[in-house]
């Protein structure tokens, strides 16, 4: 009774299909791979480390973000083998300057362009359906990999800023072409 996960309608979260990925709601079955990620030093750029109960709370807050805002963070898995590979989408809580486009890819998904594919789809969806365009991303100054990806996606450095007492760089994404 204590550990059940439920497959319930999370209709607040739209499903997006790309060439290789499905972007969909965060779900209980993502928890083991999320927990493994949040146990590593790779998670230090995005709020880690966290243990399994804290990671469960992250799952709940991501779902609740969608329910409160009508937009939020998608989790994505590969179409070929339905393996959970990371997240991409929007985050906007008190203290944020504006809605942020963020992403993380699991270690075994790095270097394959999966994060770019997910972020490109999330960014286009936000512009078309959520009236959120020319989005910004917070990049920790030490996160060279994330900065490189932001630049690859066409984002440009806008200014230095502070988020929750930590210094970060704001990168601005290009306005999306009308489809």
């Amino acid at each position, binding site marked *: *009774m*204590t*550990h*059940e*996960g*439920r497959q*319930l*309608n*999370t*209709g607040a979260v739209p499903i997006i299909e790309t060439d290789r990925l499905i972007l969909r*709601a965060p*779900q*209980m079955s993502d928890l083991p791979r999320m927990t493994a990620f949040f146990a590593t030093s790779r998670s230090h750029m995005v709020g880690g480390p966290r243990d*399994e*109960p804290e990671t*469960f*709370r992250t*799952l*709940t*807050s*991501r*779902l*609740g*973000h969608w*329910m*409160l*805002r009508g937009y939020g963070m998608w989790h994505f898995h590969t179409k070929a083998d339905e393996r959970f590979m990371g997240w991409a989408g929007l985050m906007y*809580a*008190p*203290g944020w300057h504006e809605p942020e486009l963020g992403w993380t890819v699991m270690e075994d998904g790095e270097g394959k362009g999966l994060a770019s594919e997910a972020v490109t789809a999330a960014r286009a969806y936000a512009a078309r359906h959520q009236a959120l365009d020319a989005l910004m991303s917070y990049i920790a100054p030490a996160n060279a990999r994330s900065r490189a990806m932001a630049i690859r996606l066409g984002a440009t450095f806008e200014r230095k800023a502070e988020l*929750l007492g930590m210094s970060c760089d704001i990168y601005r994404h290009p306005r999306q072409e009308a489809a």
Partner: protein
Amino acid sequence: MIPVLTTSRLTLRAPTPEDFPVFAEFYASDRSRHVGGPMTREQAWRALAKELGHWPLRGYGRWAVEITETGAFIGIIGLWNPLDWPEPEIGWDLMNGFEGHGYATEAAEAARAHAYDVLGWPTAISLVAVANDGSRKVAQRLGATRDGTFHHDHFGTMEIWRHPAPVDLSDGGMEAYA
């Protein structure tokens, strides 16, 4: 997805963004010290999001409780089961200024009836921080009895209060909820 429950004075419904100012004020205040506070607005916003996100993950959660007559949002009460809880819990947090009217007891009874009658829980507990006398009184009014202690690294030491089983409420209790 989040059902609406009603009692004689209260309506239990899904939390909404409009509840946030009152929710944040509670979590900024010292009254929240027994339930993980005080916390910043950013943390409180995430806490409200967690209340909502618990519903799709577990199939149940906590409701925002309002006074039916006035629409005032007065508390977050319902069924709570994060990964590090000893077992599913009936929890109640009254917002500032709404203590002393029996609202927590009334809403928690409705939540308990939902747990037993709709979800089929065989039993239920409530966790009460050791210094939270007001919350302990609610547990006692609901007929719960002490059943050990639970220590949580963040929330501290809590008393486990065990509610009467469904069968023990069936004489005279359940009709009142129907």
